[in-house]
């Protein structure tokens, strides 16, 4: 036991300097992408229209389009990897993906794990889909009621703690919505932009999005934490800045039929070139 302790101490003392060096830019990921000629991007494949599959099995959507723009700018090939909420940060940490654009909400706890790069490319709030007949007006009306949700969403815990609702979590969106139809819960809690698109399809007659959206939070794309303040992080900042300025994000939003958000409009105006006409 003493031997082990001594060994561990020796190791930690010996490795100490390396930890300090790791803070400086080695640009491992950036260099690796440039050398191998392939940028591997983690995107969602179960979040229409942000990232979903066509019948050939290819992943398409707004975020794959953004990934393609990044790869084109870097002059490398693009490889898309389907990630889910529960593994996207681990994949990036492990190096399985170089960049993650996967509908991730920018949260403080997540910034400790991955390098989330600003300016944020999108924003969404939390809202519910509920039958009109129940006449919900405010979040407090939900107290003590069963509410369906999807596993891994950060707002599940928030609404549970703040309003005392009983979250009934499902693995997929279809299952959760079916549960709402089967009246196993009084509402379906989800992103407001997604609920908006759902209602716009006209297949949810008798349902509404009655509450004021809460926790409007920006979405962030992420690079490995070590690259945050290095070439890759600064490059991604620049990409997003340009997307906001030249209206690329607004175009993509329209292309994929996403409900227009005031956020993208205001960012576009704020970053407008003062010399342009």
């Amino acid at each position, binding site marked *: 036991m003493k031997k082990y302790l001594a060994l561990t101490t020796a190791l930690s003392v010996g490795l100490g300097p390396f930890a300090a060096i790791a803070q400086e830019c080695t640009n491992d990921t950036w260099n690796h992408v440039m050398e191998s000629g392939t940028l591997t991007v983690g995107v969602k494949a179960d*979040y*229409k229209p942000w990232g*979903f*599959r066509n019948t050939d099995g290819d992943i398409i959507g707004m975020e794959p389009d953004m990934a393609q723009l990044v790869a084109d700018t870097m002059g490398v090939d693009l490889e898309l990897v*389907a990630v889910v909420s529960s593994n996207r940060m681990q994949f990036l940490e*492990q*190096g399985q993906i170089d960049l993650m654009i996967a509908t991730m909400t920018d949260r403080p706890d997540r910034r400790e794990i991955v390098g989330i790069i600003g300016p944020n490319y999108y924003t969404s709030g939390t809202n519910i889909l509920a039958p009109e007949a129940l006449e919900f007006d405010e979040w407090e009306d939900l107290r003590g009621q069963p509410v369906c949700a999807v596993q891994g969403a950060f707002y599940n815990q928030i609404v549970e703690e703040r309003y005392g609702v009983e979250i009934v979590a499902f693995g997929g*969106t279809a299952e959760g919505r079916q549960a709402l139809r089967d009246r196993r819960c009084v509402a379906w809690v989800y992103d407001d932009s997604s609920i908006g698109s759902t209602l716009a399809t006209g297949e949810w*007659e008798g349902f509404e999005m009655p509450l004021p959206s809460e926790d409007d939070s920006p979405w962030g794309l992420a690079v490995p934490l070590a690259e945050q303040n290095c070439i890759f992080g600064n490059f991604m900042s620049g990409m997003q800045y340009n997307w906001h300025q030249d209206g690329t994000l607004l175009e993509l939003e329209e292309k994929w039929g996403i409900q227009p958000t005031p956020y993208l409009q205001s960012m576009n105006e704020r970053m407008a070139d003062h010399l342009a006409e």
Partner: protein
Amino acid sequence: MANRAIPGVAAHATTDLPVMLPFNPKAGAHDELLVSRWLASVPPRYVFFLLLLWPVAAFAQGVDYTTADAFVALWRWIPFLTFQGFVFNILISVCAMTIGTLAGAVLGLAHVSRLRIIRQVAWFVTQLFRNSPWLVLLFIVLLAFPFQIEVFGTTIPIPGWVKAVIGLSLPIMANISEIVRGAVQSVPSAQWEAAESLAFTRTQTLWQIILPQCFKRMIPPWMNWYAILTMATPLCSLLGVGENINFTRQAMEAEGNRPELLVPFFGYSLVLFFAYCYPIARATMALEKRFALKL
């Protein structure tokens, strides 16, 4: 006094005397082939009923978006779900079974080693992997293993499904080792003694006398575990490995996540898995009957 019934006459026969109950071969005993026995006991004609029931159940559920639309949607996705999805389930199960069988055979023989320490290690490994939830093992392997390894300067990528193979082969290894150990120990000890008296070495006895007798006995439980493993491969979908169930969810998302899609799409997965595992279960029971010990 008047209320007191007489056991065996006015009431159910009971006694507190130590009486040996008659042996009931169907009750209580552990049945290692439970899954296969149950699956194989489904008569083939029911399978056709089930196939008929599937669209009917789906039709009963539809509201606006008709179920016919849902089946048209399914039709578009069938090539993708089958050839990029279910093929991976089979691939994962075959590879995991191969690795699990080889490792399990070694581990099973370690159980009957003459060295105490080897027996103890084998016992510990078996118990560890036999009693851990499969999902936990999968999570550990998927998240703890590197996504690529470097061997002599060349980088070998390890895709998610390969890690799933490793994760699933661990519990298979432990269970196969129990099958091997049980089969070896089921051979009467007189065989060992007879072999020893004929000057066979221990290795010779094992390979030339004991194992050939065990082999037939091991096939039915082995196939049983294969069917269980195949049915467990959708667990990988929780970890984002591209396989049938994961792709089914993604396909439903692409079709707008209409609840009407649930029964047709998951029903299709059911049909695929059933079509694959049912013949295996039937064959397992047929072989079990054929190889049953004749007393």
